[in-house]
């Protein structure tokens, strides 16, 4: 469950999940919505896949991402959107800083 909280703590990842609520989207199309580098975006995707909130599927040469959130996880996303989630764990904060670099 800590993986889920860590994944939902970041606003970029929350935005990815919101975009995926409309349906499966390719990695390229998702990245267009954000002003971040490719490796950073890949790191965000990796965190979301690691938390089992999204699923990556290869279709030809493109990677499609799909939402894989349970009802409880979606409710948590709603709460995180409404009230925000604070990362207090120093390890998590270091990970986020690493991803932003």
């Amino acid at each position, binding site marked *: 469950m800590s993986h889920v909280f860590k994944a939902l703590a970041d606003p970029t990842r929350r935005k990815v999940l919101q975009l995926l*609520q*409309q*349906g*499966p989207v390719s990695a390229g199309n998702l990245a267009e919505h954000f002003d971040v580098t490719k490796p950073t975006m890949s790191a965000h995707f990796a965190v979301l896949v690691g938390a*089992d909130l999204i*699923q990556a*599927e290869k*279709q030809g040469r493109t990677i*499609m991402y*799909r*939402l*894989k*959130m*349970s*009802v*409880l996880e*979606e409710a948590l996303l709603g709460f995180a959107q409404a009230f925000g989630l604070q990362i207090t764990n120093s390890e998590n904060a270091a990970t986020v800083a690493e991803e932003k670099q």
Partner: protein
Amino acid sequence: MTTDPSQSSSVSIMRALIIAALLLGIAVVLKVLPPEYLNPELARRLLGVMIGVVVIIYANRVPKALSPLIRMRCDPAGEQAVRRFTGWSLAVGGAAFAIVWMFAPLRHANSLSGGLLCAAVMIVIVRIVLGMARESHA
């Protein structure tokens, strides 16, 4: 790390069988327990709440049960919307079922909880039919 699909499906079947056996066992225990050990009204309420919780647990997992995109014959976005709607509708139905069995008068609890859960299932069916009709028009 990869997992063998047949192994994971046999694990999930085994888990489902264990849960089913557990539920039946608890239901039998609640039924046969003498009144001096457990109040019959409390036993009925516990059973109702347990059924509601089971519905919530299974409904919670519905949006996570994905089938591969390559095998999908319908619009993936529509399928995802239906799966999410089903999960939410059944989870709310299950919660309502459990709450009714917790607090409603016992003489009304059976019909009220059943009605609420049936309503949740009917809403899901209507949503699926509407989704299919919309897709066939498109």
